[in-house]
């Protein structure tokens, strides 16, 4: 019994360490190994105000406009699993030798996406 205490503490420490690591990973908005969608810990404002056009061709005026939240670190797949057609348009980049493609069909849903390729945080937009 006397020797079981340190073992329990070690296990507890391991669990705490794992929870802290996962919390830190989630909070930092990094992509997890499974490639599921993770999000930044900061949330976007619901609206922003400033000198803008409220509609295409409209005048510059002081307005408040809605903000749409976009995916942060969206999942990705290898080319064979993409289900894209030959003539689908993509935005392609190569960062530190890593090629990555963003189908315009997805980017145009959100207009901008927050991703990371290698160590570089990128914002593909269309």
């Amino acid at each position, binding site marked *: 019994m006397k020797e079981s205490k340190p073992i329990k503490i070690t296990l507890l420490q391991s669990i705490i360490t794992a929870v802290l690591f996962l919390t830190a990973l989630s909070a930092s908005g990094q992509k997890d190994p499974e490639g599921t969608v993770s999000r930044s810990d900061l949330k976007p404002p619901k609206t*922003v105000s400033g000198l*803008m056009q409220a509609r295409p061709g409209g005048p510059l005026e002081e307005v408040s*406009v809605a903000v749409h939240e976009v995916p942060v670190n969206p999942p*990705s*797949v290898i080319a064979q699993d993409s289900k894209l057609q030959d003539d689908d348009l*993509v935005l*392609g980049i190569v960062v530190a030798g890593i090629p990555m493609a963003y189908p315009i069909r997805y980017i145009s849903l959100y*207009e901008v996406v927050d991703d990371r390729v290698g160590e570089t945080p990128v*914002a593909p937009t269309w």
Partner: protein
Amino acid sequence: MYARKYADREFTFDFATGLIKDNLLFVDRETQSIWSQLDGKAVSGPMKESPLQVVPSMQTTWKHWLEMHPDSRVMHLSDEEGNSYYYRSRKPGAPKPKTRSKKHDTSALGLALKVGDEAAFFPFSELEQATLPLKFEVGGQELLIHYRKDAMTAWATDSAGDLVTTVLAYKFGWLDFNPASKIFRAKENEKRGK
């Protein structure tokens, strides 16, 4: 395509539904500054006038991209059953449209780039008539301009063969931000070369 960084500070962007010069705007979660998509600079808020670094990218067809980068990964959005989101549908798993236009309106589209203070725009319709790849000097730098009609794309490389920062844009949008931009004309260019 931008790097989400300025002065070692990382930003997370969302889509703000207003416009400036009819161009899209982003807002960052960290400072709530508003940024212009085409200009790549903050237009208001604490980060006003801060420029984002452009990441050289290429807009092209999936087929063409895969020819160049067969090991590429690709962003993929799907619902819980793995059904893809389809173009212009916010509903996951929506059936693929029965008729989908194969045409892409390239009448006002072109390759746009800036070297230093000098901007240039290469309309696709003019590149179709040019001898390719096209040698062209912008801002004192000699570039090679490439165009592939079947892949609906154009891009530029420098003397080392590296991709140069460009954007595919509509002429009116590019000129709103760069009114002094050169506009490439195939016939004029041919005459100058003779």
